Structure formats: structure tokens, C-alpha cells
């Protein structure tokens, strides 16, 4: 089962995705696929906040800032993966690895399909960055399009699609 969780900043999407992961995993293993790079004071405090939230909840953290593929061989078919989050992963590949938008799109959709196949459940956190009315530079605008396209493609793969608004789930797809 694939669950796609989308929300704005501070929407409570992480907390909700974590709760859903715990529900889905039952007594089986929970893997936290972390995409954030440890590259600055805010990142450190954000990572610390997320680690604090997962503490004592039995999550095993796996670092995947540049892709999931290498880590999938250690995933079992009863594991539930929480991947947080899609926008970081896409930005890391696009801006650190200098991959094109098409390459990023292909890599992420392929790896997510593979991750879903080899695990029990996959919960993906993604960002709603599409409605602030700001005119961005061409580079950022292409990144926004890339993430929008990725969300649309993952909606096609997902069994459950949910937007988190002020901590409240709004379901768009539920199987």
C-alpha cells in the first residue's frame, strides 16, 4: 500500500504521516527514510525536532538524501517505510547532483515503485508549494513544475492520497 501525504509548511503533515505509518506497520518494522542533508543550523534543528518526534516510536532511520535504490536490498516485505520528503529528495538530486528535471522525475518514480514492491507499505511525505502566487525565477519555477509532476505521477501509484490542513486529513483518494 502506498500513502501519499501532501501539505504546506507547518501543516502537521510529518506528524500525521508518522501516525499513519505506525498504524500500517502493526508490530512490524518501521523504517524512516530521511532525505534531508545536514547542511546548516536550521537543518540541524529541524532534523533534531523530527528525531525527537520519532524517538521511542521504534523507527529505524535510513539516510537516503540522493536516492532509495542502494538501501532497498535491506528492506523486507513486511516493513513499512516512511519517506520524508519528496521535495528534499528532488531538490538534492536536481541541485546537488545536477540531474535534469526529467532524470530526477524518472529516478524518483522508478525508485518509489521499487520501494513499494519490496516493502509492506510506503508512506511518502510531499509538499504543497503551488499556491503562494509568487513569481519565481526560471530555475525555481522548473523545480516547482518538477515537484508538481512528481506528485501527479505518485497519485497514480498511490492507494491513499491525503492533504493535511492544520493537522486535519482531507482525503482525495482512498482505496
Amino acid at each position, binding site marked *: 500500500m502506498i500513502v501519499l501525504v501532501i501539505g504546506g509548511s507547518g501543516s502537521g503533515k510529518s506528524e500525521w504521516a508518522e501516525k499513519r505509518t505506525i498504524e500500517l506497520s502493526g508490530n512490524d518494522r518501521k523504517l524512516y527514510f530521511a532525505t534531508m542533508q545536514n547542511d546548516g543550523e536550521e537543518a540541524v534543528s529541524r532534523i533534531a525536532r523530527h528525531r525527537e518526534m520519532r524517538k521511542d516510536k521504534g523507527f529505524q532511520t535510513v539516510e537516503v538524501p540522493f536516492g532509495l535504490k542502494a538501501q532497498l536490498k535491506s528492506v523486507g516485505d513486511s516493513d513499512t517505510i516512511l519517506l520524508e520528503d519528496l521535495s528534499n529528495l528532488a531538490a538534492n538530486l536536481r541541485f546537488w547532483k545536477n540531474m535534469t528535471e526529467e532524470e530526477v522525475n524518472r529516478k524518483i518514480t522508478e525508485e518509489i515503485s521499487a520501494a513499494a514492491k519490496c516493502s509492506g507499505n510506503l508512506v511518502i511525505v510531499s509538499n504543497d508549494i503551488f499556491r503562494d502566487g*509568487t513569481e519565481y525565477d526560471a530555475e525555481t519555477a522548473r523545480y516547482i513544475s518538477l515537484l508538481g509532476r512528481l506528485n501527479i505521477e505518485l497519485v497514480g501509484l498511490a492507494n491513499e492520497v491525503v492533504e493535511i490542513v*492544520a493537522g486535519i486529513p482531507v482525503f482525495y483518494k482512498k482505496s
Partner: protein
Amino acid sequence: MILILGGFAQGKTEYAKKKYPERHIVDDYAQSFRKWLSDGTDPEREIAEILRKEPECVIISDEVSSGVIPMDKFEREYRERLGRSLVKLAAEAEHVERIFAGIGVALK
């Protein structure tokens, strides 16, 4: 307390006045939050104080968090903290509604 969310110019205030005429309305929460934050006032304490005086109020807030993470530190903090405040208010609220083109959709 009732929490009303929505984009700019969606008719949130008119909706709230019409649906809850007897209640005190705390309008433009997002703008107030920004002002408090830039004045160095603690926004969480401000809203707690308002709720203490007006526990049955209707809080109206723009949704501002659906954009690219801002480069500016103040803007990042504003969006993140307002978002977290709205999560907390939503959890405490009797109802949460989101207004889209004047139409209310119940979230809670």
C-alpha cells in the same frame, strides 16, 4: 472556538459573520501573527490571551503555507510558526471550516 481557513479573498469574513452572527470574530489572524512576530511579541501568547477573554470566538486565518520555502529567515519562521499555531487551534476548535470561493467545507 471555531477556526475558519482559506486563501485570500475567499469570502471568509462574510461567511463567518453570516453563519456565526452572535460570536466575536478574530479576523486576519495571519496578518496579526506576522505583526506580532515582527514586533517581537509572542504570537502564541497573544492568541492564548484572546482565547482566554473570548473562548467562543471565531478565528479567521489565511492559508499561507503552500509555497516554496522562503529564502528569508523571518518569512520561513512566520510560515512555520503560523502553521503550527493553526494545527494547535484546529485541534482545540469545535469546528474547522475551509472556505473556497465563499463555500464552506467542513474539515472538522
